[in-house]
Every structure is written in structure tokens, then in C-alpha cells.
């Protein structure tokens, strides 16, 4: 019997404590700086082109094979505006398949890809799973608008 009263004491004591929950859709908790949502591509503002050269390193390293990259000759390089001889032509990432392992970010030699560390990278529910396959423009949009707090690992 004493044990049961002790248990009830804990329950009532908890009633007096401040709640630890947040009312989610109305309020968002801060995501940590290192937050790893989904990978996005970064935009080189100085040269006005993506950092990505389409080198396929990330595509080969991705454990779940959710990326597709193609490469083309850089038109800006011909005009001497950019140092990149090759540039990305098309880029798709299937977010429905990505397991957010960060390996693409680690293998990229050009620091062209990063994990989205904002809430925009989390609230991605869609009605059609094909909408989760993002193309180059969509992947660049976040960084172009400056909506990402850059934290590049290492």
C-alpha cells in the first residue's frame, strides 16, 4: 500500500512541474546548427553559378543511390568569367530515398553540397511521392535566397 502512495506522490509532484512540450505546428523549437535535414546544393554568388561541377563523386558514394548528376561544359568558362571548366547540367535527389547520412557532403571536393539546417528541410510532406524528387533549381533555391545558415562539417 505504501508503495502505491509513493507512486501517486510522484504523479502529483509531476503535475506541478513546468511542461516540457512545445505546441508544435504553432511553435517551432530551434534546430541545432548542425541539424541534418536533406542535402541541398550551394550557389556561388560571386560567379553566379552553382559550386557543383557535376563530378559524380557524391553520386558514386551515396549508399542508397538517390542522386543523379550530369555534367556539361561551362559556358561561363569560355567567356573567362569562371574558373570551373565543367559545370552541373542536371541534378536530381530523391528525398524519399535519401537516408540523410551526410556522406555526399563529406566526399564533395568543391563544397558544393550541404545539409539543410533549417526547418524548411523538415516539413516536406507531399501528397505525391514524385514531388520529393527535387531538380537542380529546387535544390539551389534555398541557398540562393540566403535562407540557410551555413555550417560545413570539418
Amino acid at each position, binding site marked *: 500500500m505504501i*508503495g*502505491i502512495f*509513493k507512486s501517486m506522490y*510522484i504523479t502529483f509532484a509531476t503535475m506541478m512541474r513546468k511542461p*516540457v512540450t512545445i505546441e508544435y505546428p504553432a511553435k517551432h523549437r530551434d534546430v541545432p546548427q548542425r541539424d541534418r535535414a536533406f542535402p541541398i546544393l550551394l550557389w556561388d554568388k560571386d560567379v553566379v553559378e552553382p559550386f557543383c561541377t557535376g563530378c559524380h563523386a557524391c553520386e558514386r*558514394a551515396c*549508399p542508397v543511390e538517390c542522386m543523379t548528376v550530369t555534367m556539361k561544359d561551362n559556358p561561363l568558362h569560355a567567356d573567362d568569367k569562371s574558373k570551373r571548366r565543367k559545370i552541373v547540367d542536371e541534378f536530381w535527389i530523391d528525398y524519399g530515398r535519401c537516408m540523410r*547520412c551526410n556522406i555526399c557532403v563529406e566526399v564533395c571536393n568543391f563544397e558544393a553540397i550541404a545539409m539543410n539546417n533549417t526547418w524548411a528541410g523538415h516539413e516536406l510532406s507531399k501528397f505525391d511521392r514524385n514531388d520529393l524528387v527535387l531538380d537542380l533549381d529546387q535544390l539551389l533555391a534555398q541557398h540562393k535566397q540566403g535562407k540557410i545558415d551555413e555550417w560545413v562539417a570539418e
Partner: protein
Amino acid sequence: MVQEQQLETVDINVNMGPQHPSTHGVFRMVLTIDGERVVDVEPHIGYMHRGAEKLSENMDYRAAIGFQDRTDYLAQFLNEQAYCMAVEKLLELAVPERTEYIRVILCELNRITSHFMFLGAFGIDLGYFGTSFTYGFRERERIQDIFEEVTGERMMYGYFRPGGLAWDVPDNFVQMIRDVLPHARQGLNDLDVLMTQNEIVAARTKGIGAMSAEDSVNWGLSGPMLRAAGIDWDLRKDKPYSIYDRFDYDIPVGSHGDVFDRYLVRLEEARQSIRIVEQALDQLPDGPIMPEKMPRRLRGPEAEVYAAVEGPRGEYGIYIVSKGGDKPYRLKIRPPSFCNLSALRDMTVGNYVADAVAILGSIDIVLCDVDR
């Protein structure tokens, strides 16, 4: 008027699961019951089979880290630790001091979160209906936040790398953990008061599903299941790996091997983990987190290695057969949940149906770990 006809009783089969709130995942038990007594149990597993072993065999050594998190999803750091230890053994990489300490700290915190999860879910199995679960989760969440700060992920950390870590911990790492440990200790005390002396819990658990020490060894049980039966066997002490020989901590051992002892052993183990974390924080050295001579591409020699860690559920081992090249030829996971689950029938037969839930809960299975 008394009926002439002879009344008969028959054993009936009851399907428990795969969608059942008390099976901790998608696990199906076919119980044969005689009235309220269980006379036979047939477990059906495999609903969560994803072929983690085969997937890991098709990845190079670094990429396969992600799949280790997804076997035992309540003890991700420990799985990564086992895998990294196996690869490090194979490639003969020397892990830096600082990395070892960070790994131990994270692994022990992970053990605490896993045991919080057990204590909470165990309460539900006994009919607490959410009270213990929310208390356990409240404290677990604080530690989970630290993991998120450090690795960027809430569940599938993918933070350890063969040889080291993906990146260094944030500057406020030590302070963050020191702030959280009192809460964890308080949370354990709360759950202790809530359950240990509670007469209802005692009536539901004492003497239920007892396994003798001899049977436990014969079934190949490990972890808290084995220690509850009175056998003092913990890989951290008995086959010291990493730097566990530098800390001062005790291994809790039960005596009856019943459901109650398993609960007590886990509760005490979580407390001991707090002790280890405190000592490791005091000793945490500075330095690099990756070995100096780290090959760009990890290529293994022709060899076979086995590395095991003491996970919250028992011995989690990785066996790698390498025939050279950057992928393992064969990778075998020794999942503690699977081996512990094999003793289910021995424990359950002869008990009431309601006890079957308590017994299954006391094994603390993770179905992703059972099915891989």
C-alpha cells in the same frame, strides 16, 4: 435440467501481433491457450527484414555506417561502435585518445536513453498506461537533444567513422552533458519510486518468467537478461574493449532471473552509466579525432575479424570476412535481441496470457535488431 451432453474444453490459438501495442514493433506470437494459461508460443519474425547484412556487403566500409544505425535503433552509437571496432581491427587503424573518450561518453548516454525507453515501455506493459512512458521519454528527450547538437540527427546519427568521428564535438559538449546528468539521475529515481516498491508491479513481475542461470547460458542470452539470472558477465569488464578498463563502475547482477530482476538490473545499469560518463568527462583529453595516417580509400586485407560491444540489450557483435578490396565479403551481425528472444517459449509456457506481455517486455527486444 442437467444436460446429458459432455462438456469439453479445447485449446485455442490466439494471434498476438503483428499490430499489437505490446509487442514493441511488428512481432507476431501465436499463443496456444488453455483457459488463461499459455501452453505453447510460436514466435513469427521477419516483418522488418531489410537485409542490413547484405546491404552492408555492397557498400564500402564508410558508406555502410548508415545501415548499422538502423539495426538496433535505440542503441545506434553502440552499433556504430561495434562496426567501427571491427573495421579498425581489420585495417589496423589506431583510434586517437579523444575519439575513444567521446565514443564512450556517447555510448553510455545512449545506454541510458535505451534504458529509459525500456523503463517507460515496461510500465505500459504492466498497465501503467503512459505514466512511466512519458516520464521516461521526458528524460530521454533531454539526452536526445545533446545527440542532436553533436551529430545533427535525432535517431540515425551516422557519426562514428572507421578510425574516428565524422567531426569534433561542439565546444559546449562537456557543459551540456553535465547539465543533463542530474536530470537523468532524477528521472531514474522517479521511475524507481514509481515502480520498484509498487505492490502492483511486484505482483505482476516477481517470480514471473524466471530463467535459471544454467538455462540462460544454454540459450546464449546476454546483457541484462543474463545478469538478472545471476551471472556476472559484461563485455566491458570481462573482455575490455575501447577504454572501459579506465573507469570505476559496478555491474549489477540479479538473483532470480525473473521479470522483476531484469527491470532492476537495467535501472541500476543506467545509474552506473551515469558514473562512467562523469568520469569520462573529467578525463576527456584534447587532441585529434582522426588517426594521422588515414587512407583515403579504406581497403581491407584478406582476414576475418570479430568485434563486439556490450549493448543495452546484450552482446552486439560484427563479424567481417574480407577478401581484400573496399567491401566486406561477408558481414554478419550478432543481434542481442534475436538471441534473447529465442528463450521466449521457455519463459512463457505455463504463465497467464497477461504475463506473456510482461515477459516479452522484459526481454526489451527491438524488432529491427531481430530481423535486421
